[in-house]
């Protein structure tokens, strides 16, 4: 089961000797919105399907998965990515967490400081002049950055 947090729930239930009818049990997930959850479920199902189709061919699985991931990224807004990451993290869904973290890293890697701050809802807390000093020290790392 990919959603490890959910799996944990089932394991706990079994340990408590409660017969759980999987089809009727409602598992509370207070920290996950329905929209990212839906995407994660789709992702998970797709992943399992691709894996089943290419049972012994790992490379083919990876290739198909990559194609699906590219398609998925086109439909997802960058801002939604952070919600998806939080959801995947809460559910302890490792593959999705890895994929969405890579997607965020890819989205921000060539962006400016201001963009990154806005993306994560951060503000500069540097003392006066501190930030300028840092920028000067590593001026080369600011070359070739995307325009905002």
């Amino acid at each position: 089961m990919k959603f490890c947090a959910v799996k944990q729930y089932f394991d706990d239930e079994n340990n408590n000797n409660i017969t759980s009818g999987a089809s009727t049990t409602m598992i509370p997930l207070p920290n996950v919105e329905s929209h990212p959850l839906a995407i994660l479920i789709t992702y998970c199902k797709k992943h399992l399907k691709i894996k089943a189709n290419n049972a012994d061919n790992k490379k083919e699985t990876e290739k198909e998965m990559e194609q699906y991931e590219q398609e998925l990224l086109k439909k997802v807004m960058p801002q939604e990515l952070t919600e998806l990451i939080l959801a995947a993290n809460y559910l302890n869904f490792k593959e999705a967490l890895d994929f969405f973290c890579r997607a965020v890293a890819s989205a921000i890697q060539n962006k400016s400081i201001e963009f990154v701050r806005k993306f994560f809802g951060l503000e500069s807390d540097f003392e006066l002049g501190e930030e300028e000093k840092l920028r000067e020290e590593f001026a080369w790392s600011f070359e070739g950055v995307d325009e905002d």
Partner: protein
Amino acid sequence: MMDLEYLPYDVLLEILHRLPVKSLIRFRCVSKSWNSLITSPAFINSNLTRTRSHSDSNKLIVRYLDVALRVERYKLIHEDNDNNVSSSEEIQDLKLPLRSSRLSYFQLVGSANGLFCLYEGNRCILWNPCIRKFITLPNPSVTAEFFCYLAFGFDSRTNDYKVVRIAYKSDTRYEGAKPPLVEVYSVNEGSWRVTSGGDSYPPKITMSIRPQQAASLNGAVYFVANDWGNAQSFIVLSFDLGDEVFRLICLPYGKFGSDDRIFTSEFKGLLSLICYESWHYIYSIWVMKEYGIVDSWTKQFTIDLNMQYWKVLRFWKNDHVLVQKMQSGGLMLFSYDPESQQVKNLGFCKSTGCSYADNYVENLVLLDKPNEVVPKEESEQEEEVQSVGCHICLRWCSEIVFSAKSAFRQKITTIRRRTEGCSRVMWQ
């Protein structure tokens, strides 16, 4: 947009660990907490572990000596999945921001994972071209009365880089000679430490007459040495960076002549010897298949390229051989595939002298060390060089250095080198 409060620390780490070094350096400016996170030794450490485990051996960092005197440059060469070779923009002709105080270049001690160790006289520096930062090591405490040898290596057990300094007190060819004193500098500790390594130094062993960079692999450094207790035959001397003990590794009997030139190297994670057989103008590659078993030394393959002035540098892409060829104006780099015996051009370096290459891994090592300011007189000095090539032997015969520091061009020095076997020197 989202609130930082809801972004768990370990999730932020997952994102940061997937960013290239250039972005990480820039994002130090995002906030104070990001700055202290990115420059923390723990982050630098785990970042290194991750990039090492994900790295392929398709990236090389090449160090070459620019035609302009006293400037050394670095560039990245990599091959993508479609076998296209390109030179990265990130590290393209990157200049070392220091000049040697002598009219020469820094000597290269060695490198590991793209971190370089350079020295001149008593100054030893560590340079990370990836983050464009260097540190100068403090002075070692041991003085070498006779001769001093340096080596540089990486110990994956502690994720630490170490500089080994072997200070000889006497000529170790002879019985009863005083063993050398061994000092080790650790990047993690930030200081030199005298070790008891000398106690395990085997008798009647000297470093090879033409010392090359010691190979660094599996937590030890390996030197080619001469065994004076055995007719001055070649032998490999190793120094383990963990237990700090010297060990000898014998070579297969009768396979190496005194005219051969041997270098230690790494081949697919194994100790290897690159041997230039001077009588046949070919290279033979030996690999120690089972560590410590002399009988496991295997002649993996030979390389005969039927061209002049070429040299094997190292291995990359698993079993491909990196070769440099000297030609007019600089060096050409090639990749040789021993299976297909195909040679592929990797590009040209406008270099004087030999180049050096290492497998490249993106890393943040030295980022947490204090910054060093390059002394003004070193950085401001502009030098213009007119170099003259000799068309007979295709080597650089003479170099004239001008100082453009003041408004007047002053010819500050002239260096003339005459290459062996060439009687002609041209002036421009």
